[in-house]
C-alpha cells in the first residue's frame, strides 16, 4: 500500500503561549514546536500497515521552514520519504484552504490510503482529513482506532461517544482520521535518525498547488478565555496549601 500521512507541527504541549501584537495569533518567536499528537498516532498506524502489508509511507506536511524538524522525526521513525509544502500563511487559511493544499499534493501521488490525525492541538479544527477526502473524491472514516486490510479494502474500528464503537467497511483509496490511543507510539532509533538524513525530502511551494481561495471562516481576534467560575487559588507551600484545602473540604464542601 502507498500511504500518505498528513502531519502538522504545533507548539509544544506545555509551551507558554502569548497572543501576538496583532491579536490574531500567538507569538511564535520563542516557542518550541512538536509533532501534533494524534498525527503521531496516524504515522504509527501507517508504519504498522506498511510492516504488515508492504508498500511505502510518505509524510506530507505544510508549513514554514521550521516544520522540517518534525518531518525529519517522522522519517527517523520509519517513513520512506517526505513532501514539504512551503507555506507561511497557514494560520490565515481556514480548514478548507489548508486541506486544498494537502489534497492537491496528495492527489499527485495517487495514494491507496491517506491518514491524518483527528485534530490539531493548536487550532483544533478537526476537519482536515474529512475535507481532503471530499476534495480527492474518495470515502473516509474518522475517529479510527484500528485498521485492518481486507481483500476488498479496509475494515476500521471507529470510536463513537460514551464508550461505544463501530466497525466500518470501506473501499480503497480512502482517507482515515486516526484517534489517539489505538496503538503504542515508537521512538526513533539512532539508526533511524541516521537513515532519515539520506531519505528523499521534496519541497513544493504552496503557489504551485493552486491559488488559495479567500477564507470563509475568518479568525478575527484571539483573547484569553473568560473564566466560567471564580476559582479560589489556595496559596502557600505544598503543606500549607494542603492543610487549607482540607479545611475547605471539611467545612465548605463537607466531604470529609
Amino acid at each position, binding site marked *: 500500500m502507498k500511504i500518505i500521512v498528513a502531519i502538522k507541527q504545533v507548539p509544544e504541549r506545555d509551551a507558554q503561549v502569548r497572543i501576538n501584537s496583532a491579536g490574531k495569533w500567538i507569538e511564535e518567536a520563542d516557542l518550541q514546536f512538536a509533532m501534533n499528537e494524534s498525527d503521531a498516532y496516524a504515522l504509527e498506524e501507517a508504519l504498522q500497515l506498511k510492516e504488515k502489508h508492504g508498500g511505502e509511507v510518505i509524510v506530507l506536511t505544510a508549513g514554514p521552514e521550521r516544520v522540517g524538524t518534525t518531518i525529519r522525526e517522522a522519517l527517523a521513525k520509519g517513513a520512506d520519504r517526505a513532501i514539504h509544502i512551503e507555506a507561511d500563511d497557514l494560520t490565515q487559511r481556514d480548514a478548507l484552504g489548508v486541506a486544498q493544499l494537502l489534497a492537491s499534493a496528495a492527489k499527485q501521488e495517487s495514494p491507496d490510503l491517506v491518514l491524518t490525525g483527528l485534530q490539531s492541538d493548536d487550532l483544533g479544527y478537526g476537519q482536515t482529513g474529512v475535507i481532503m477526502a471530499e476534495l480527492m473524491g474518495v470515502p473516509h472514516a474518522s475517529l479510527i482506532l484500528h485498521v485492518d486490510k481486507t481483500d476488498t479494502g479496509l475494515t476500521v474500528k471507529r470510536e463513537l461517544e460514551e*464508550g461505544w464503537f463501530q466497525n466500518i467497511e470501506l473501499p480503497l483509496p480512502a482517507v482515515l482520521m486516526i484517534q489517539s490511543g489505538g496503538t503504542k507510539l515508537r521512538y526513533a532509533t539512532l539508526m533511524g535518525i541516521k537513515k532519515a538524513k539520506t531519505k528523499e525530502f521534496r519541497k513544493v511551494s504552496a503557489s504551485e498547488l493552486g491559488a488559495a481561495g479567500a477564507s470563509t471562516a475568518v479568525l478575527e481576534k484571539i483573547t484569553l478565555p473568560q473564566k466560567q467560575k471564580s476559582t479560589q487559588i489556595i496559596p502557600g507551600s*505544598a503543606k500549607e496549601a494542603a492543610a487549607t484545602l482540607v479545611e475547605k473540604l471539611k467545612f465548605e464542601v463537607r*466531604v*470529609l
Partner: protein
Amino acid sequence: MSGVYVVLEDRGGRISRISWESVVAATMLAAQSGAKATAIVIGAQTEALATEAATKGVAKVVCIEHPLLAQYTSDGFTTALEQFIRAESPDYLVFPHSYQVRDFVPALAARLGRVLIGDVTAIGEGPIFTRQLMQGRLSGSYKSAGVGPSFISVQSGAFRADGAETGAAEITTFAPTIDAAQIRTKPGEPFRGTAQTVDLGSAPLIVAVGRGIKEADNLPLVQDLAAALGAELAASRPICDNGWLPIERQVGSSGQTVAPKLYLAVGISGAIQHLVGMKGSQCIVAINKDAEAPIFEVADYGIVGDLFEVVPALTDAIKSARQ
C-alpha cells in the same frame, strides 16, 4: 435566503441532548434577525423525531427522509443535506458538535465551497462565533465571510438546553434523491467496549489523574490520595491511551460523564474533551503546576504547584483530619 436551520441528531430513537442545546443556539442566532429557527431531522422514518422537535419553539420542522438514511453514513447525510441546501439556500445551518457531525459536516461544507466553524461555545452580535484554541488556553472570535450558507456546530454544554421554549410547529418533508452506489462505506452495528465494572457516574467523590503524573510508576501517589479520601480513581484520556489505567476509568467525551460532589483533578490541564465529562461536578478542585491551565477556569479551588509535593501533603492532611 431563508434563515437559520438546526440539524438535530437521533440518539436511540430520541433527539439527543446536545441537539436541544443546538436548538437554543440556533434560536439565539435567528433572534438576531427577529426570526425563528427551523429544525431538520434526518432518517428513514422521522415522524417520531419530528413530533418531538415540533414542541421546542421552532418555526417549522423539516423531515429529510429516505430509506438509505436509516443508518448514518457520511455519504448519505452529505448528499441529502447538499440537495436540501441547494433547494432552500439557508443562511445558517447549526449542528451539535457531535462525533457524527465532525464526520460529515466538514465534507458537506467543502462541497459547497464553505467551511464549518466548529465547536462553538458562544454566539455574539454580528454574529461572532467564539471557539477555543490551543486546547482551551485561548479563545478565538470567528466571522463567516463570502457567499453561501454558514455552517456552525456548537459544543456540548455550551448552551443550556432547558431554555428551549415549547410550541407546536408545522412539519414538512423533503425527499432527497440518493442512489445506493453513492454510499461508499458500510457501517456496522455499534457495540460496547469491554464490560464496564467501574461506575464512575455514581461515585460521590472522584480523584482524577492526568498527564502531569508523568509515569505509570507515579500512580500510587494518586491511588493513596483516592484511598485516603474514599474516592474512586479516574483519569484523562492520555493516561488510558498509555494503558496506565483501564479505559473504564476515563472521564471525558470518549469516556464517562460524571457529576460527583467532589472532583479532584491532579495534573490535568483541562482540554475540552475532558471538561465536557466533568464540568457538572458540584465542587472541582485542581492541582496543577501551570497557573494558566484551562482546568482552573472551571475549578472552585485551585492549588498551583508541583503535584509531587502537593499530593503527598494532601494525603497526609486528609489522613490526619480523618483520625
